[in-house]
């Protein structure tokens, strides 16, 4: 189990005990964290699980692969710390991870 904090656009925080091996998106969906739609279920096909990763974790979450990067290039309100949460796998390394969800995924 790894603690992940999801911060909504309005600042509301929700802390989840995520299972290692699942994605940051899956942990959010299973725990009804608002602000992440994940329409395609994690296939990196829809860009509706966009999150902003807290600076302290940018190195630990690694860098996006080509497909994710090009999806992000065209998502709304992208920042330097934008990631698709379906492409971040929960692990011990990410204990305390904080991600913020954008105002809208569409």
């Amino acid at each position, binding site marked *: 189990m790894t603690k992940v904090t999801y911060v909504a656009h309005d600042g509301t925080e929700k802390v989840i005990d995520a299972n290692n091996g*699942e994605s940051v998106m899956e942990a959010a969906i299973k725990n009804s964290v608002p602000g992440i739609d994940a329409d395609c279920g994690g296939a990196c096909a829809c860009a509706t699980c966009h999150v902003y990763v807290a600076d302290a974790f940018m190195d630990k979450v690694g860098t996006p692969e080509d497909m994710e990067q090009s999806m992000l290039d065209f998502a709304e309100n992208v920042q330097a710390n934008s990631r698709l949460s379906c492409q971040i796998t929960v692990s011990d390394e990410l204990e305390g991870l904080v991600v913020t969800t954008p105002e809208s995924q569409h």
Partner: protein
Amino acid sequence: MDLSTAEKLVIIGGGQAAAQACASLRLFGFEGEITLIGEEPALPYQRPPLSKAYMKGEMTEERLYFKPQDWYNTQKIQTVLSTRVGKIDRSAQVVETEDGRSFDYDALIISTGSRPRALPLPGADLGNVFDLRDLSDVEHIRPLMVTGKRLVIVGAGYIGLEAAAVARQLGLEVTVLEMADRVLARVTSPVMSAFFEHEHVAQGVHIRTGAQLASLQGDGQVQAAILSDGTEIAADIVLVGIGILPNVELASEAGIACSNGILVDRDARTNDARVFAAGDCARRPLVHYGRQGRLESVHNAIEQGKLAAAAIMGKPRPNEDCPWFWSDQYDLKLQIAGLSEDYDEIAVRGDPEERKFAAFYLRGGKLIAVDAINSAPEFIVAKKLIITGASVAPETLSDTSISMKEIAATAA
């Protein structure tokens, strides 16, 4: 009709549209009882991985579920699984199950999905002949999918080709039989068909287009597929993927208007103000195309689940997106936006040989669809342009020296 204070809401069907409707209803503040009645023993789950990662064994069953059982408990959603509905009595507002239970409703959502079209040929009922629709289908097929087994796939649609890709990666010998003269004939253009056929052949799949299957033969278990020209193809497993039919019977027998799907308006409402339909079973207005249609897709199931929930709660209608789809085969990601079927012009951007290209479809100068292979920008920009009804010159689309960002910025 204001249904926001309905006391009892019943959902028939336990697929993606049903799961979305449950989540959206609670999100929008619905406080009444929700009862979800599903035929399958499993909680609502994702179907796309069944012919992709899950079939390949790369994904656990638990990860297919949209929500765990706990979620349904805490959301006070009663799940009635392994249960078939026999009848909808609209005058009494009651849903009757085949095992004799009754569920009253003030509002009803029909999300009965679709079923695989059956192979109308001798031998279709032999052992080891499968459809691919439900979790239980994969449970039956997967133990047989071992190196060296001979798999014959009937139908070169997306399901058939995705299964072919998985089977090759697992080391099976794979033959795909397709009646039309090209793969994916019903769903895409010749340029995409040629690309996918080439990819599968390069991976060692035997593709037979223009193939007339006459029968399946075997002694209890299937042993061969026989074509009408007498060709015999040895088979240990046959997978049939020749399209799906909407499950409209319950609605139709209850007098709800149907025509290749349960007819609904933009709010997913049927001709009975208390009854909604969502997902594969519904025939809906396609607002970006000025006609009606039935969409067999994740996007549609999610969107109509939301539309129904919003209408029930009297909320503003959620966004109606451009239809979109995807398919994963080998290391190829195909992303599709829009509906290409009546295009009159096509523009190819990039080189299929690089396995990264897109086919844009236009009608009367307007962009109506794109098939994008490993090309997310083309997919995302096209989706936006289709929604705005933009006209783009085909030579602009095929000019890779103009970036998709520039195309998006200048399209009218």
